């Protein structure tokens, strides 16, 4: 071997050995540096399954944590509500958990009402609450935001024995109307979750389902599936209502309809459909005499009869009815612009009726098995709700109103308020603030100081759901009980304590025995009780194994096979319609100077004011107005011109109940007789980001209710508008090269 070859070979060997050694050394050295604990890559972090509690929709989520800090929230792909998707508010939840404004310690009014809230130790806070409970004589109430969580279940099991105990909820308005209408058509009260994903045509009756309502992520997902996931056809969507919302924008067409008149449209469409069924002999499952009875009831709702009142021509109504016959089953979905009026429940029933007839027409040609009503086992769900949540009958505005009146009359000695802000987000005419002042002792479970917390006698800082043990049973498709487990994903950020632990401990101090020492035990006992009915848990697992199995999945829900109906859904009782086929005229809270309809709505991803303290959500442009960091009042440009109002002018909106002021935003997608205002603005005590941003439109609302369900008729208020003087700059998300207005290019 010559010298040159030797060097060549040497170089080759050296480099190859370096490569080999490198690969091996890395694997040998790094485990030595990082203790081999559980095989988790510290850079990639760990993923935990838990459940989002930002709103009541109940999406399953997975959370990435790195070095003990939560980094990113994603949807849980296995969860039946959201299938791996998440909304803006859910993803911003980490910021709420780490928020600088979080309450750090319990606060107590040591000198009674009128004195200041002072920091106390947890021992003292629990002792005081225990003493108050022991002396309360059972006159205790529990109020939450309508979420079916373990805290509500525990409160009910601890205090429910006493007849003087009241449980109520401050939930989004209109929910109980859906349940009342659902009960008329199904055997049990339920929120409708229609099968949009498999339908070719969906008619939205004022249902802003992608923004607020039942479950924005669920509805967005089925919308996407209907539109473009089926090879057969593109799903078409038509929106009827008084405002072109973000949901309406995603639809193919928006048809403005006067407020409160959507029931007439639903029955006129039903009139055309039933007429066609009789003529063409469609839907053989419906008895002939039933059909003629319906036709008799629908006689006064022919398209020609209602065209003047609904401002939709008979021709348009007939075209809307066509898909319900030809492409049956087509789906109608009703939402806030139906449930928000005094005729909400009958209108919801009219929409359900339309769905039912179309379903019967399409029953024959259905290729995909309808998942409309998978065999309901309301018993299982109700039994679970006994542990986690409240029975639906306890959740209504009527109950909240009664509670407030009783509080004001001094009927309760102790109030427990959890994660809800009724002083801010109920109509100011309800005067919850004054009622709270009349209650000798109110304890509030909260994450932040807000308007209700500020008025409490004892403030109990709770864990954020990322730090907490809990469980939730969300409202979801009828008959599908879904159990969401909430587990601590990060270590607590403040000295807060789990409300479930605190309520059990305080009750014990107050002389109410509980078989569970803390919240975690309560949840484990709950799982143990229902384990036999959760068939998805492998038999061979121990109790501990079963618990871990559920935590890894994020909860329990029946697999699809079980969801399939054992027997086809019977519709026999549906033919008994009683009062259903009527669309009563809506009543409005009128006044001589109030020419406009007030249209309050929940803006996208901010809830009813909960999300207002996050800069990230404040800076997320509203999809319709593109406004950031700002409140606004929408009115039609023609109305604005008539009143001499320009964009940004401060205007005052007045009703018989009160008035509020904000900058005007002329918007073409709103009826000229409607003023629309997003709710959730105008906090007076909710941290530096939210406080004094806008004005609270809840000042404008009276207490009109839906006659049938007792739900707050929050769209039935009439208002007047006048210039307040002055104007402000509107903070729109502007493209530096010009605003996004006009037909810029072909989308």
């Amino acid at each position, binding site marked *: 071997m010559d010298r040159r070859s030797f060097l060549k070979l040497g170089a080759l060997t050296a480099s190859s050995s370096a490569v080999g050694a490198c690969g091996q050394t890395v694997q040998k050295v790094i485990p030595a540096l990082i203790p081999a604990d559980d095989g988790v890559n510290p850079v990639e972090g760990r993923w935990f399954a838990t459940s989002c509690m930002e709103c009541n929709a109940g999406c399953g989520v997975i959370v990435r944590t790195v070095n003990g800090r*939560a980094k990113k929230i994603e949807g849980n792909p296995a969860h039946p509500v959201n299938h791996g998707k998440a909304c803006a508010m859910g993803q911003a939840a980490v910021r709420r958990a780490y928020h600088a404004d979080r309450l750090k310690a319990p606060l107590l009014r040591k000198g009674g009402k009128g004195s200041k809230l002072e920091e106390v130790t947890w021992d003292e806070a629990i002792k005081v609450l225990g003493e108050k409970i022991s002396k309360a004589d059972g006159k205790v109430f529990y109020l939450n935001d309508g979420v079916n969580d373990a805290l509500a279940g525990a409160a009910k099991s601890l205090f429910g024995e006493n007849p003087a105990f009241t449980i109520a909820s401050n939930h989004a308005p209109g929910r109980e109307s859906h349940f009342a209408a659902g009960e008329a058509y199904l055997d049990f009260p339920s929120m409708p979750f229609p099968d949009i994903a498999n339908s070719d045509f969906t008619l939205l009756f004022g249902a802003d389902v992608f923004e607020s309502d039942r479950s924005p992520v669920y509805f967005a997902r089925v919308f996407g599936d209907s539109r473009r996931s089926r090879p057969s056809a593109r799903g078409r969507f038509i929106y009827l209502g008084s405002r072109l919302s973000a949901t309406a924008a995603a639809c193919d*067409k928006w048809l403005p309809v006067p407020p409160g008149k959507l029931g007439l449209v639903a029955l006129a469409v039903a009139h055309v459909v039933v007429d066609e069924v009789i003529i063409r002999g469609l839907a053989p499952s419906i008895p002939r005499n039933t059909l003629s009875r319906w036709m008799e009831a629908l006689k006064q709702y022919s398209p020609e009869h209602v065209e003047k009142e609904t401002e939709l021509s008979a021709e348009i109504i007939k075209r809307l009815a066509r898909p319900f016959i030809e492409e049956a089953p087509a789906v109608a979905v009703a939402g806030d612009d139906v449930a928000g009026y005094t005729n909400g429940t009958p209108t919801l029933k009219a929409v359900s009726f339309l769905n039912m007839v179309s379903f019967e027409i399409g029953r024959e040609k259905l290729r995909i098995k309808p998942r409309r009503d998978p065999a309901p086992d309301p018993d299982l769900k109700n039994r679970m709700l006994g542990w986690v949540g409240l029975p639906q009958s306890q959740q209504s505005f009527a109950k909240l109103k009664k509670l407030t009146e009783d509080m004001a009359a001094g009927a309760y000695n102790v109030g427990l308020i959890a994660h809800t802000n009724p002083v801010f987000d109920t109509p100011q005419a309800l005067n919850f603030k004054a009622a709270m002042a009349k209650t000798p002792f109110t304890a509030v479970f909260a994450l932040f100081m807000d308007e209700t917390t500020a008025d409490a006698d004892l403030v109990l800082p709770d864990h954020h759901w990322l730090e907490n043990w809990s469980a939730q049973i969300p409202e979801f498709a009828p008959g599908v009980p879904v159990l969401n487990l909430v587990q601590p994903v990060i270590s607590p950020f403040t000295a807060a304590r789990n409300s479930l632990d605190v309520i059990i401990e305080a009750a014990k101090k107050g002389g109410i025995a509980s078989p569970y020492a803390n919240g975690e035990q309560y949840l484990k006992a709950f799982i143990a009780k229902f384990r036999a009915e959760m068939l998805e848990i492998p038999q061979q697992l121990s109790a501990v194994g079963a618990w871990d199995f559920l935590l890894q999945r994020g909860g329990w829900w029946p697999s699809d096979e079980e969801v399939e109906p054992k027997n086809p859904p019977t519709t026999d009782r549906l033919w008994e319609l009683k009062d259903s086929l009527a669309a009563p005229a809506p009543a409005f809270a009128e006044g001589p100077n109030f020419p406009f309809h007030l249209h309050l709505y929940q803006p996208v991803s901010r809830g009813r004011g909960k999300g207002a303290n996050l800069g990230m959500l404040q800076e997320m442009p509203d999809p*319709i107005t593109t406004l950031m960091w700002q409140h606004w009042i929408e009115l039609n440009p023609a109305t604005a011109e008539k009143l001499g109002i320009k964009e940004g002018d401060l205007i005052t909106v007045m009703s018989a109940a009160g008035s509020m002021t904000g900058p005007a935003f002329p918007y073409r*997608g709103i009826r000229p007789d409607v003023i629309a205002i997003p709710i959730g603005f105008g906090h007076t005590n909710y941290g530096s980001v939210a406080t004094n941003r806008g004005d609270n439109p809840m000042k404008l609302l009276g207490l009109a209710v839906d006659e049938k369900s007792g739900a707050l008729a929050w769209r039935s208020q009439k208002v007047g508008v006048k210039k307040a003087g002055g104007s402000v700059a509107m903070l729109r*998300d502007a*493209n*530096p090269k010009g605003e996004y207005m006009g037909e810029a290019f*072909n*989308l």
Partner: protein
Amino acid sequence: MKIFNADKQNDYKWAMVIDLDRCDGCGACVIGCQTENNVPTVGQDDVATGRSMHWIRIERYIEGEYPNVKVRFLPMMCQHCEAAPCESVCPVYATYHNDEGLNVQVYNRCIGTRFCGNNCPYSVRFFNWWDPSFDEATRNQLNPDVSVRERGIMEKCSFCMQRIRRGKDHAKDEGRPVKDGDIQPACAQTCPTGAITFGNINDHESKVHEMVHGKRAYRLFEEKGTHPSVYYLKGGAENVF
């Protein structure tokens, strides 16, 4: 200098398809991106001066007069142009095109001339006029995979480069090529309606490859010759009802 070579073939060329028929403007992608990529908020005062910092934004267009009004949404982010107007003007090669079709921004090369932002027809580059102010909550959430940008740096959508890296690493560990659907940027992963699809357009079996060859596919400002890697599927339909 040849800035666009259509014949160049690599294993990977990343592309995104946005179905405008599915977008409902909910903004989940905006927050998803912001939390994944450590994008700061700029605050009310800066917004008032016309600033905003969203790597992905929902553009909103209004057409027609009452009552025949139509509102449309269009998610907009860096288009990762093959012939990117931003790349050729950077004096320090802080923005360049990598082998996988990504328009890459190298933060520690950037000297803040803002020529790239000026040249971008899509207005998707964002300049840090000040050091970002992260409150305690944000600092706790900062993603360790993504560097935080300081004052004087231009930033923009990276197609979640860190996720592409991780996806490729995982595939390599398992000794296989990246499968379609392995890698999802934060916006695509979260989009509730499934409007955003991401994948390797050089993989002829991939979803994006199929979608960009559909009838509805188009690219923004195609006439400018930028050859974006983001494709849009036209929304709407005739004779809806």
